[in-house]
Structure formats: C-alpha cells, structure tokens
C-alpha cells in the first residue's frame, strides 16, 4: 500500500527530470522542478508512515517552504528574462557559449 506511494513518487520525479531536460519553455521547466521537489515530499511522507515517525511530515513542510522561496525567485528571473528578450523560450539564450 505505502509502496504504491513510493512508486508514484519515483514516477513524478522522473516526469520532472524529463520536463527539465526536454522542455524549452522556461515556465514548464520551473514547474518540472517543483514537481521534482513535491515528489520528494511525497516520499518523505510515505517513509514517515512506513517508519512510523513524524519526522518526515515536518521535513516535507520545510521543503515546501524552501520550494516557495525558490519559486518566487524563479518568477522574478522569468520577468527579467521576458523584459530583456520578449520571449520565454530557452533557445534564445546564446550570448554565452558552451
């Protein structure tokens, strides 16, 4: 039963990785990263149930707080990019080689 949640968590994490690697839209990339963090949260909560401790639940809360801060900064970066380039496609960045 709890193993199912872990499998779901791994699937979500993999979807997140695929999204970061394959998508070109900056927003989608940011959302994929959030998905990866939330996959980790799900794993925390599932393991907390499995180990019968409360630690995991609290750790998940901490991660949510950090993810919110990261998302806020990410949106600021997106606004800055949009002002400069007028597009949100990561292909337009070519000033720095490599």
């Amino acid at each position, binding site marked *: 039963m709890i193993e199912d949640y872990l499998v779901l968590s791994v699937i979500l994490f993999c979807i997140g990785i695929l999204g970061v690697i394959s998508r070109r839209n900056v927003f989608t*990339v940011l959302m994929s990263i959030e998905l*990866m963090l939330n996959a980790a949260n799900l794993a925390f909560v599932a393991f907390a149930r499995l180990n019968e401790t409360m630690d995991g639940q609290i750790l998940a809360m901490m991660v949510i707080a950090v993810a919110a801060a990261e998302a806020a*900064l990410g949106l600021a*970066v997106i606004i800055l*990019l949009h002002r400069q380039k007028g597009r949100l496609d990561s292909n337009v*960045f070519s000033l*720095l080689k*490599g």
Partner: protein
Amino acid sequence: MHDFASFLPLVITCAGALLLMLYAVCPKAEQEKASLMSMGFFAVAFFAQLLVVCTVSRSVFPETFNGLLGVSSFTNAACLIIYACGFFTTLSSHTYFRENHFATVEFYSLLLFSAVGMVLLSMARELITAFIALEIMSLAIYILVGFNRASSRATEALFKYFILGAFSGAFFCMGTAMIYGAAGSTRFESIAEWLAFNPATTPLMLGGAFFLLITIFFKISAFPFHAWVLDVYDGSSNPITGFMATALKTAAFALIANFLALSGNLHDSWITGLFWIAVFTMFGGNLIAIGQDNIKRMIAASGIVHSGYLLIALVAINSEHFSGAVIAYYLAAYSVATLGMFAALSWLGGEGEKRVNFDDFKGLAKRQPLAAATITIFLLSMAGIPPTAGFMGKFYIITSAITAGQIALGVLGIISSILSMWYYLRLIVSMYFHDAEEDFVVNGTSLASISTVALAIGTFAIGLFPLVL
C-alpha cells in the same frame, strides 16, 4: 555558554545582513557606506570566529541544537575561510562599483546572507538543515550573479545557474528522502549508527547518497556537472565570481567531507566512484582551461581542476580519525590565490569589465609592475610552485593520497599539476614579455589594490604556516 559562543560569529553575520536590509530602506542609504558596514561585519565575524577557534576546545555540541549543527576544528577552519572570502569580496566590490554603477545596498546584504548559508552548510549535521542552508546560500548567490539587470549576459548566466541549481537542489531533496527511508532519520549521528549495522550498499542508501553527491558535485563543478561553470563565471561580475569560486566551494566541500566521514562503511563504498570523478575532473578541467582566451573563463576552468585535487583529498580522508585539515588547508590556499586574482581583475578590469582577455593584459608589467607581480604570485600559487601556499596544499593532498594507498591518484595529481602550468604561464608571459598597448589607467589606490597586496602576502604566509593536524 560555550555553545552559544561558537555560534556568535554566525549571529553577527546574520544580524549584519538584516541591519543592511533595513538600512536599504533608509532614503539616505548609500552603497559605499553599506560596503564599509559589510566589511566591518565580516571582519568582526572573522575575529569572533578566530577567538572561538583559540578558546573553545570542546568539539561538537549535540545538546544545544539537538544534533542538527555541529562544530569541529574542520568547520571552524571552513568558517574562517568563508568570512575571509566575504571580507575580501567586499573590498573588491567597493572598488569594482566605482566604475560599474549597478550596486545597491542590498548587494552587500545578500553577500552577508549567502555567507550565513555557507557557514550553516559547513556546520550542518542533518540533511534537511543542510538543504535549507544550501538554499539560503544559493538563493542569495543567484541574485548576486544576476545583479546587473541591464546586462543580458548577467541575466543569461543567472538563468542557467538558477535552473541547474534548482534542478540539482531537487536531487538533494530526493536523496535526503531516500536516506530518511533507509536509516529512519536524517541526522548524521543516527545515519552513522544505522550504517554501523547495515551495509551502505542497500538500494535506498546507495541511491540517496548518489543523489546527494550529484548535488554537491554540481556545486563544486566536478566532472559530469562542470559545463555551467564557465558561462556563469563569465556572466557574473568579477567580485561575485571570486566569491562563488572560493566561499561556495569551501562550504560545499565542508558538507561533503562531513557527510562522507560519517562512517567508513559509506566512504568505502564511494572510493572507486570518487577516484574516477577526481581523475576526470582534473584532466577535463585542464583540457577546457587550455583552450580559453578569457581570463575569467580560464580561472573558472582551473577551478574545476582544483576541485579535482580536493576530490583526491576526499578519497583519502580517514573516517576513523577525520580532521579534514588537508582539505581546509588546500581550500585556504586556493581561496587566497583565486580571491587575489579577482581582486586584481576588479581593480584593473575597467569600466564594464573591458579588460578580460589574455591579450588585454599585454605589457601590464611595464605599466603596473605591482599589479603584474601580485597576479604572478597568485598564478604561481595556483600552479603549485614551491614557496607559495598552493605548493604546500598540493604537497599535503598528494601525501595524504599516498598514505591512504592511492598512489595512482597521487601520480595523476602531479601530472595534472604540470599540465596546468601551460595556461597559468601563458598569462605571465603575456604580462611580462610583450609591449604595452595601453596605459592601464586606474584611479589611484583603491581597496581592491590593497587587498591584492594583502592576499599576495597571505599566499606566502599560508605557505609558511605548517599544517596543524
């Protein structure tokens, strides 16, 4: 009480950051004053830390923070390096912003905040604490990288660093979840207890440690995750590049060394992996550095090589009697030279960083003999030429590798060190053996020039200072 004293430098830095944040709202706020204040906070924190190192002898404080944070001689050394990096970065920023006008008071506040994150990261004895410290540090650094909002290069560097940093942060989080699933706790102490009775190769533990290592390798720009470092260093401003190259690397290495030293069991299971990553990091970094024309990109690539040497020290650590002295010594030697290079670049770079290529520094020795001499000292220290700190650091690392039975790694380290002469000497040749094409007008004595000289002296001072084991 002693527990609180060990924590005092961090409190000072944190209070400094908050005060500067408040000062930024004040209508008469000037960034020049803010830079002096931030210098003061870093200096006070440094001396408080020095006092702690000299007076408090007890090592770890388990009771005060419930084992979430720990202090040892290694973390003390790492904190000293971080505060010193912050101090010298502020000095070079002060000079840099005379010619590049995009600084605000918040710049220095964020510098202090990122130092807080780094110090917490090096003290962390629990994985979620480490994750939060990592994010405090990274979020501040992201903003500092993209601080010049008018420059599209800086924005691009910020975007690359942010996406990759957040991506690797998610791996850290997942790794923590897996280790929590395996060991039932995220505290280092409990993980070590669990590892004493269980192999480190159970799937969850192996996967968790692998994910954590991915994040740290990304932060220290080790081999498969090194591609971002050139672009990000190139796109951000000189003082911040220096800060990222030194303080951030120190904090990340402190965390990874603390983590791997948890239990011999864990360390042994990663020795082969670390061995190959160290080798590829050194030689890959050298290959990239040889092809660079831009000094910042060359230093970035040489930073990859130095991470490789530090990984050798990581392979060689003894988890039974872990002191981390070799790692701390090398980090200090590397930080002094790299900060010095970036202080010199901030001083001589000119408006809008117009001097960045090897060719731009042709004939510097004829116009600015002092600057050329100090840059030469830093480059020789990075290359590992005898009287400097860089040589002693490499010497200790290679000796520790041979003591640990990793003779092949020691030999490869020496070969890589010889290869790296190529690009360090190239800059020296272009400074000394060419005629000057321009006058290198810089406006008088500045804080960056003073810090360049101080760091050049520091290069020899650390080189003379024997390793205290």
